[in-house]
């Protein structure tokens, strides 16, 4: 996968859903998004979600 599609809407939804489920998300340079299989922490709080979203869209 090229980098043109990095962090498109689908990726952002995947990220948000995974974080909300308490999973860790890995973003790779090739544009792939990987969510951990296991829950690593409590589901993301509102503040953390806001921050993560802002970082995800801040390009």
């Amino acid at each position, binding site marked *: 996968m090229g980098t043109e599609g990095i962090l498109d809407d689908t990726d952002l939804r995947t990220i948000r859903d995974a974080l909300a489920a*308490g999973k860790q998300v890995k973003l790779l340079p090739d544009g792939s998004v990987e969510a951990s299989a296991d829950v690593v922490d409590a589901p993301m709080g509102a503040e953390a979600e806001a921050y993560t979203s802002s970082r995800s869209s801040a390009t």
Partner: protein
Amino acid sequence: MRVLLEQGFEMNLHPAGQVFGASGDGLTRLQGDADRSLGSDDLLTIKVVLGMGANVAVLPDGTVQTRHHLDQTPRTEQEVAALLAQLDAAVADGSLAAEARSGRGLTIADAGDGASTLLRFAQAPADAPGIALPDDPVAPAPSPTAGEPGGENIPDDPTGVDLAGLADRIDARADALRADALEDQVTESSRVGLERDASAREAWMAQQGHEAAWQQARRELKIVQAETKQVADLEARARAAEATSSADDVEDLRQSAAAHQARLDVARLRMESAEAEANRLGQEAAAHRDAVTAAETRLAEIDTRSADRVRFADLLEGQAGQVRSAGESLAAGDVDRARGWLTDARVIGAGEVEPDDLLPDDEAAPEVPSPGPITSPSQVDDVTGADTPADAPAPAPATDEAPAEPLDRPADQPADQPEEPADASLDQPAGEPAASLSVDGLELSLQAADSIEADLAFDDFSAPDSPEPDASSEPDVPTEPDVPIEPDVELAQAEADDFSLLDG
């Protein structure tokens, strides 16, 4: 974050809101969370990576950026502690937050001399995910193919070359160089200027203290002189009275002598204390004046370096214009013309070498007393304010020049050439000073004798031919003064009253 991914970073998002990033080579890492301030995790990371010898930046949004080197040298615990103390100071005094609001982050990075580390604020580029640290590819570095004055990267053949893109890159490099030059000038000039002004104030204060202590020492010397004479006189009279007067009269004279001896002891103690303080403050003032001189030299160097970099940026912009013209000629089908423009571009600045960054020389610069890590914009503005010592109406700061000699100190008296005694009739044997002062290398000695009551002026107190005086020794008082002398404590007291403002 997209920029990071495009630069080969791998990012990890934690559901707690933390974001971690690592460059493809694993040497650059980012750690951020929703809290813009430095948390315990951030500080721990900073402490650990500094200990490993890596460089660190705290970005305006609170993200901690670290950069490792393959050949990095671990820092000692003391070095790490010192750096963290400076970081704490930047947090405590609000400068870190203030700079962050201006889009500037704090870097803790190698100074470039291979031995030291500097804390300094730097502008975080809007189009890059971090601040350039030594050996750090995070922030876009000038492209090695962007062209340089000297033209080695300007192609000979314009065909098949993105000349517009090349011109843009050269322009971008010129802009970055110009911005860096100005930023360094502001940052470094502010820092050194603040150090210079602080040293100037310290020098002025030390000089004033030196002058005051000097006056006090001279005042006490006069009292020592007068009291020494009184003691000698009264004891001589008591001895003479033993044969001619009653025992009560003799006792009265001895009690009076004892009272003067007590005053003498007090004055001697105060004189020696003031003398020591005058010498200490004189040396302190000289050291601060040296620091002022060093800082002013450094300020001139910074200006020169900045001007060199701006001039280099000008060359780059000229080169970019030639390359752009080559592209236009090529687009118009005039390959020869385009080739000519490129030849011109290569000629621009031939032999020029880009000025080095300021950092390495900063460490080599003369060390000047620092008022602390001051980099906030408000403090920078203060540097150019009108309330600096040099602008203060009065008293004039004594730091740039020696102050005017205050009060009655002989302003034109060389420190190493004490004046000759005005009264050569003093019959105190040379080499037997009763008391002496040594300030600024100038020896002032009291010649305890019976003929000095007529003039207690300062000029009479030198003993240029005396051997090394011992201020702690008791006055060598003649046992048989040639001329009876009436007690004249009032005279010494009158002299002392002239300096009543200095009495503590």
